[in-house]
């Protein structure tokens, strides 16, 4: 069953679904960062595609030449793919002012790639009511600009349908994650990441179908994954499933994660309340969602991580922070202190985007697992 998702991922970044969508004359819009509401793109009849970098760690000559060596390898990797024409199929790009890496990636993308439609949303760093007002105004403006670009209105009915579809995805992913709460989960952490990856480059209608089938299969299967210790992976953007696989190959049982490509992507549904427009509901969900390290106060993020640790009975946390990913690097000393208070050790890894977790990282994971075993 996982093979189906792998097959989709094998034609990264332009999957067969993307080609099919393009050939029907419809638009494909790339989005950067989880603060960009996909529902709006979907409701416009366009296919939202997540912009990420190479699936493996690569030499980033072009990316580095344009973004300089001290910007995170995620930004450089994304830009290099675009510079080499791998994202030429995109009709538009939407980003958020989430971090320095992404905002500069967006600046250079606009200048050197020149995709037809581009917009960057101002994302407040707080959860206050005035922050929500500002974010809603940004989302409203984005909708208007997209309508102008597409040449058709995005109706409330279409938005509601998109919300329902995306909420279904979120509910299914929650079911998938719930399976990992068991002592010996039927699916590994690396396989889950492969599933999520596929979902970023295919219509959610088809993804939900496949995901539902996968959950059915897993629920009935006798497959069991055992490990030396239950782990959570937290930190910077991560798309290479090999990284998690390398931890699992050493006996780590990765049962959950706090990543923008996983739990932080799907965790909260859009709540359609009476008296609230669909756009207001979308905006509220995206700003209030499981926060990125950019948000203030950091305790919002820490508390959610602690909740994950309790829900999934996590014994150790692997923090993987891409070099120059400053928001996460700043949070790390505070996070370690918080987790120390609940007696959960942290393995802090400095990585490059796309890292497979081999070499020195593998050695440190091995030592971490030994330490966790010794505590039992």
């Amino acid at each position, binding site marked *: 069953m996982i093979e189906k998702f792998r097959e989709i991922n094998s034609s990264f970044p332009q999957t067969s679904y993307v080609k099919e969508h393009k050939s029907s004359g419809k638009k494909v819009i790339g989005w950067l960062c989880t603060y960009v509401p996909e529902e709006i793109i979907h409701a416009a009849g366009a296919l939202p595609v997540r912009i990420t970098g190479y699936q493996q760690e690569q030499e980033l000559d072009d990316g580095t030449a344009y973004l300089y060596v001290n910007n995170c390898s995620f930004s450089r990797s994304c830009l290099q793919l675009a510079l080499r024409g791998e994202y030429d199929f995109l009709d538009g790009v939407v980003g958020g*002012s989430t971090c320095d890496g992404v905002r500069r990636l967006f600046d250079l993308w606009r200048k050197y790639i020149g995709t037809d439609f581009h917009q960057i949303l*101002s994302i407040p*760093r707080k959860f206050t009511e005035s922050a929500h007002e*500002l974010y809603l105004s940004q989302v409203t403006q984005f909708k208007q600009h997209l309508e102008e670009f597409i040449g058709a209105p995005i109706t409330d009915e279409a938005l509601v349908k998109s919300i329902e579809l995306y909420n279904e995805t979120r509910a299914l992913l929650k079911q998938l994650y719930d399976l990992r709460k068991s002592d010996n989960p039927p699916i590994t952490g690396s396989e889950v990441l492969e599933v999520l990856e596929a979902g970023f480059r295919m219509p959610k209608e088809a993804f939900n179908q496949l995901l539902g089938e996968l959950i059915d299969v897993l629920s009935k299967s006798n497959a069991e994954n055992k490990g030396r210790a239950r782990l959570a992976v937290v930190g910077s953007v991560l798309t290479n499933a090999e990284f998690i696989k390398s931890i699992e190959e050493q006996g780590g049982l990765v049962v959950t994660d706090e990543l923008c490509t996983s739990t932080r992507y799907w965790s909260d549904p859009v709540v359609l309340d009476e008296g609230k427009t669909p756009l207001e509901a979308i905006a509220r969900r995206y700003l209030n969602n499981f926060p990125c390290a950019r948000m203030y106060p950091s305790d919002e993020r820490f508390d959610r991580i602690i909740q994950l640790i309790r829900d999934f009975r996590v014994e150790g946390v692997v923090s993987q922070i891409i070099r120059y990913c400053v928001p996460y690097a700043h949070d790390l*000393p505070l996070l370690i202190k918080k987790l120390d208070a609940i007696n959960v050790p942290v393995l802090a890894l400095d990585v490059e985007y796309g890292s497979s977790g081999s070499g020195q990282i593998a050695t440190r994971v091995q030592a971490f697992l030994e330490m966790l075993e010794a505590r039992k």
Partner: protein
Amino acid sequence: MMDGSSNKIEAIIRACSVITRMNKALPDVPESKNMYYKMLTDYFTRVQRAKEEGNFLAAHTVFFPTEILYAMDIVPMHTETTTWMIALFTGEATELVTAGAEIGLASEICTPHRGIAGAFSLKNALPQPDAIVWSNLICDNTAKSGELIAELSGSPGYFLDHPFQESQQERKYLIGELKGMIDFLEHQSGKKMNWDKLSEIVAFMDRQIELFREICELRKAVPTPFSPLGFMDLLTMDYFFPGQPEAIEYLETVRDELKAKIAAGKGAVDNERFRLMSLFVPPMYLMGFLEKLSHEYGAVSVTEPFFTHWGEGKLDPNKPLESVAQKAYMIPEVQMYGPMNDTKIQRVADLAEEYKVDGAVYYADTGCRHTCALIKLVKDTLSDVDIPMLTLDSDVVDPTMTSEEETREKFEGFFELLEDY
């Protein structure tokens, strides 16, 4: 808190006092220089004595609306620039950066922020602030560092969320954030905002901006009358003394000195050969060396697009809070925040032409991601108007990053290239 460390503020005060005394003994030191060091001495003395004099001390990050602190009679302590000054005047910044690493901050976090966090983790290095106030101007480091130093120092904190762009809604949001901060400070300090005083400070700040603009205009003269790296002193005026009468007095003195030099046909260096554009901040620990090199080669920084050129606009004392918000959008460095659109980047090429620039120097600070990500864009823009650019890898604070020898070699090669150009 870790043990050890000497009081860094006292060290800065001592260094500034020594420089002031030495300058008095030299015949050619301009009056503005004496004023500058006296202002620094006074600033850090206020920081150092805040507690014993019963004043409320607020540590704040760069591009923070310090006008509000002054209007409330709160003593400000600029965190990043304090680290710079420690590097510049005492050479003891490495100790602080190391302490930052010891509390778990990664080496890619910029040294002024690692240094200040390190300083707050050490006993005695800095006075204990009564509050920490910070904003996200101008990068992720500023956005994130306040929370950590509030934790380390055990001080209450307020984060001022500065919006990314300039829409009406964003200005409204910013004003709301400023009001929230005033409420916080009133609550913490027991002092009320003095709106009349804020209006007065806004009027002074407007005058300060006018003077900054006048000084920029005078620097267009050939030869340029302004000292080779004097723009760093101008930055300090806004960082430490926004809307303060002594800053106006200082800037008027600088302006008058420049006018006198132009009238006498005198340049900042004896034989001006290379008019340079500076981008970003030179390494503090090499300032003396760079100044010497400038005189040796007749190379002078005449313009700094993102440091000395204020955005358009005027401040209105009748609308003090709106003006504080307006100023945030006009600060030269803040032109680098928000989307880097064609207008902003074209301004770099226009300034090169207006100031008759021969070459540009981009100080690529290893810890500063958002400025380094513009190197290619700026280089290409300047290349379109035939201006070569030297990119110099460096660090504002960490002396292990670049040596004098290496820097000299790169500058000499660049000057050779400019001669052949």
